[in-house]
């Protein structure tokens, strides 16, 4: 029956259609909204509608009025350093878990707790611990002679961004640890035994066998974590509000400030498009270099 055949061929697309349509509506509206309004002067504090056509003014203003370049630099720095620290720290813990000593199963189950917290909650937790007067961490660090800035780590321009990265690392290293541990479990023991027979040392085995075999998992983890760090908003909001000054401002926080604090919708729209372009370039570069050979 030709009808039935056609139906069968179209069925997967019909099944995909509802979710694709809903998602397209949910993302195309904001993108179209931002594209149109990026060419208009529109501040909600001055009126409920766009005031006048302003050409490319908003795009220029993004760089002149907001610390866009600083925010971009901070965002990339946070993304690279955070992902790097979390990957290697997590890898170390995964190797410890992989010794399968007694009690490792329980520790692995408990280790994931930081990752389950809402980033806002993690932010509060460390704001309390880092409080310059009365916080436990500055107290401990001073006790061992580590210099603590008088405004606290979150209030000092040199340490604020680094502290945000550290809190994120605290929260997400367990995620790397347990996923990389799962990756270690999936490596075929025979390959390792063969390498051992050939006389490979522990380090050699790690670099030449374990790490390359973990590559697909590692590539995936690094991509999603880098992007989540790139989007950092909750932690920044709670820990430093982008300060002091603009020392820890990220692109997401910059958008929030202009859009939902200053209500400068036109300028926010222009910035939205700049961020969308930057994100697309990063994701596509990554997919191109890392995922060429992998199929889902």
């Amino acid at each position, binding site marked *: 029956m030709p009808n039935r055949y056609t139906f069968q061929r179209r069925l997967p697309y019909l099944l995909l259609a509802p*979710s694709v349509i809903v998602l397209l509506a949910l993302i195309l509206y904001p993108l179209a909204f931002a594209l149109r309004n990026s060419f208009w002067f529109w501040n909600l504090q001055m009126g409920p509608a766009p005031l006048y056509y302003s050409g490319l003014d908003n795009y220029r203003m993004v760089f002149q009025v907001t610390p866009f370049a600083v925010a971009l630099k901070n965002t990339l720095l946070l993304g690279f350093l955070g992902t790097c620290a979390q990957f290697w720290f997590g890898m170390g813990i995964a190797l410890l878990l992989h010794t399968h000593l007694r009690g490792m199963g329980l520790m692995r189950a408990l280790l994931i707790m930081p990752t389950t917290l809402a980033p*806002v*909650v993690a932010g509060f937790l460390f704001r309390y611990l880092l409080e310059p007067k009365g916080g*436990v961490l500055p107290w401990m660090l001073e006790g061992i002679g580590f210099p603590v800035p008088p405004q606290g780590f979150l209030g000092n321009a040199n340490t604020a961004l680094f502290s945000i990265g550290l809190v994120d690392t605290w929260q997400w290293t367990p995620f790397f640890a347990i996923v990389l541990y799962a990756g270690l479990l999936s490596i075929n023991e025979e390959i390792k035994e063969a390498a051992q027979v050939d006389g490979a040392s522990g380090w050699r085995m790690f670099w030449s066998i374990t790490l390359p075999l973990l590559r697909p998992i590692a590539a995936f983890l690094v991509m999603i974590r880098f992007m989540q760090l790139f989007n950092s908003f909750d932690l920044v909001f709670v820990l430093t509000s982008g300060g002091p000054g603009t020392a820890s401002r990220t692109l997401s926080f910059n958008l929030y400030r202009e859009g939902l604090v200053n209500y400068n919708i036109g300028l926010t729209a222009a910035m939205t498009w700049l*961020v969308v372009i930057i994100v697309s370039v990063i994701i596509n570069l990554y997919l191109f270099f890392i995922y060429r050979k992998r199929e*889902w």
Partner: protein
Amino acid sequence: METRHKVAIYAMMALVMIFFLGPIFWFILLAFRHPSEAYTLPPQLFFEPYLGNFGDTFVDPGNNAPQLLSSVIVSTGATLLSLPFALAAAYALSRFAMRGKEFIMNWYISLLIAPPIVFVIPYFILMSRIGWAGSYRAMIVTLQTLAIPFSVWLLKSFMDEVPLDLEEAAWVDGAGRFAAFIRIIIPLALPGIIVTSMFTFVFSWNNVIFPLALSKQSTTTLPVGTISFFASTGVYWGHIAATAVVAMLPPMIIFLLLGRYVVRGLTFGAVKG
């Protein structure tokens, strides 16, 4: 393994556990401290527990109790709304050979890792235009930008594990695709559907950007509620800790229950734990 090595490994693991669990433990203690003792140095491990922080926030005046309800409504709503869309899409991606499958999977994941703040500000304007400003609907619908792509990925990984033979056997017995889907796939993938729902619930629960921009005072969620304590009059650490501890419990319990599925859920099904 030599005892010397074992001791070294346990010592390192102990440091790791203290580093990752210590801060949570310390924050939970804060919720039970009297506000006047929040900053006592040197830190006191043993003290008279004080329940007033929970009383103030959840009982009398209990400003945070409605936020707990809002969190439940928004997270449950977002989870339930995403399921039918995700089930259909995951079934299609799991069971059919089609052109562009890889592209569609990548498209879903690109939504998951896109910066949500980019969408939130236009939604903020849109919701007030269509009269949804501050409503639960506004949050539940917009959270689908994360809930649907996540559920599609995770559900597909579970459906891939249901053997095709069983479904084919049902077709031979005269059942249509839909009947086979209901009678074979749904029951066999049920654990996966439950796991997926629990993860979607947690991610919606922990989300702050959407409720921060789209809720009003009476519909705001618990994690956003904690932020409101950052008043200009001073920081009430006891209240913050009490609400934050209540907000962190459901995700913690769900993750402990999910056990061996945690790896799979956190990697959207890409890594089987």
